[in-house]
């Protein structure tokens, strides 16, 4: 007679699951690096067009720069977010994620981290250069970079919730941007306020701290919310 369960299950640890998915997504992004660079190209091209459209006066551009860079970073990360769970849904990998014994929110977090590393981090790193094209005074640059680092991560987390809620609705759905855009607003307000304060010679750390608080709360809630939405979405 065989014992019902001959050996204890050796389930991979949380860290193993997180790392496996992160590695997978970074590898996929590297295989399609042309496509992965699209948000950055978009960000750079529009920035280059702004002085042509509104005129090259440095004073006017410097006034516009914080808001323009933030809006473009927002659109750049949102542009790429459509594929966040959509592809996994189409090729069946999402079923495997949902059926994994790993907690789904850990896997969502891995997916978001990869997305942020591929879209948010390059945009953050390129922002000083692009802010320079828009004649942003050097005093505003540290706040811009710090704010974008937090802000793009928050955008990616919101995008994950929106993407999870609309996963079964088909590509290019307008519902997803409508769902997440209101959430982006406070991030945008505090992010631009931090830069504006720094430019006025003040201290931008208060809006930045509020932005950090939004990021922290979102980091705690969004993966769980997205995981719950994915379970419902796959039930559709």
């Amino acid at each position, binding site marked *: *007679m*065989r014992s*019902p*369960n*001959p*050996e204890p*299950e*050796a*389930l*991979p640890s949380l860290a*193993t*699951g997180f*790392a*496996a*998915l992160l*590695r*997978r997504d970074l*590898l*996929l992004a590297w*295989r*399609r690096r042309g496509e992965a660079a699209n948000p950055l190209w978009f960000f750079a091209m529009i920035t280059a067009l702004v002085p042509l459209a509104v005129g090259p006066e440095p004073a006017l551009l410097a006034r516009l720069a914080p808001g323009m860079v933030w809006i473009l970073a927002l659109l750049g990360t949102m542009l790429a977010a459509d594929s966040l769970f959509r592809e996994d849904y*189409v*090729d*069946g*990998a999402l*079923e*495997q*994620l*949902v*059926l*994994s*014994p*790993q907690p789904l929110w850990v*896997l969502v977090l891995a997916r978001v981290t990869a997305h942020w590393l591929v879209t948010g981090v390059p945009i953050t790193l390129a922002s000083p250069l692009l802010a320079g094209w828009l004649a942003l005074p050097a005093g505003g640059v540290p706040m811009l970079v710090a704010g974008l680092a937090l802000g793009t991560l928050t955008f990616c987390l919101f995008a994950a919730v929106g993407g999870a809620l609309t996963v079964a609705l088909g590509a290019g759905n307008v519902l997803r941007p409508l769902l997440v855009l209101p959430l982006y607003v406070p991030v945008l307000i505090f992010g631009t306020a931090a830069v504006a304060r720094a430019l006025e010679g003040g201290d931008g750390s208060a809006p930045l701290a509020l932005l950090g608080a939004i990021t922290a709360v979102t980091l705690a809630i969004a993966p769980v919310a997205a995981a719950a939405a994915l379970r419902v979405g*796959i*039930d559709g």
Partner: protein
Amino acid sequence: MLPSSPPLLAFCALSFERNDRLLFERVEGAVHGGDILQVVGANGAGKTTLLRILATLLTPTQGELRWCGGLLPRARASYLAELAFLGHVPGLKPGLSPRENLRWLAGLFAQRDAIEEALAAVGLAKWFDTPCAQLSAGMQRRVALARLALTRARLWILDEPLTAIDRAGVAVVEQLFRSHLQSGGAIIFSSHQAVDLPGVKYLALTES
């Protein structure tokens, strides 16, 4: 196996209704260790739906599922630790090679670390590093089946595992099935093809 021990998976009175259309009702069955259950039925009879319900991906309109006696979805954590599901799309990333695909899956599920061996066993020894997008449908299906040779799951739920598989491949799959059943595992699968294994039980879905 003790006669009194509960079946690995038991399901009773399953009904599924979508868009006011009753797909099936009062479907029931059970698998013990060593059992193999083939779901048969015409196209559109609800085979995929039933298998997705059994894998907890879909919620049935009515009915209940029990894993080792425990009611699902409450027993979901221990169920998922011992379930291997293969959907009708194989769940592979087209941009990654068979080896890379099996590696990320290994991070999510309890698997033996013998990826190359498993790929060679399904006849893909020459294709370890070719992106899956460049492999034929049958070869992609084989990659997904190679996962079954690695998993430690006791229950396999497989949706059309033999689709696009050639005759030699079917023999490989039957061999995989045989060794899983011998080691006390159970299989629920759907197929229009008969498999050459002793003791296959059938579950016929008829339109209601």
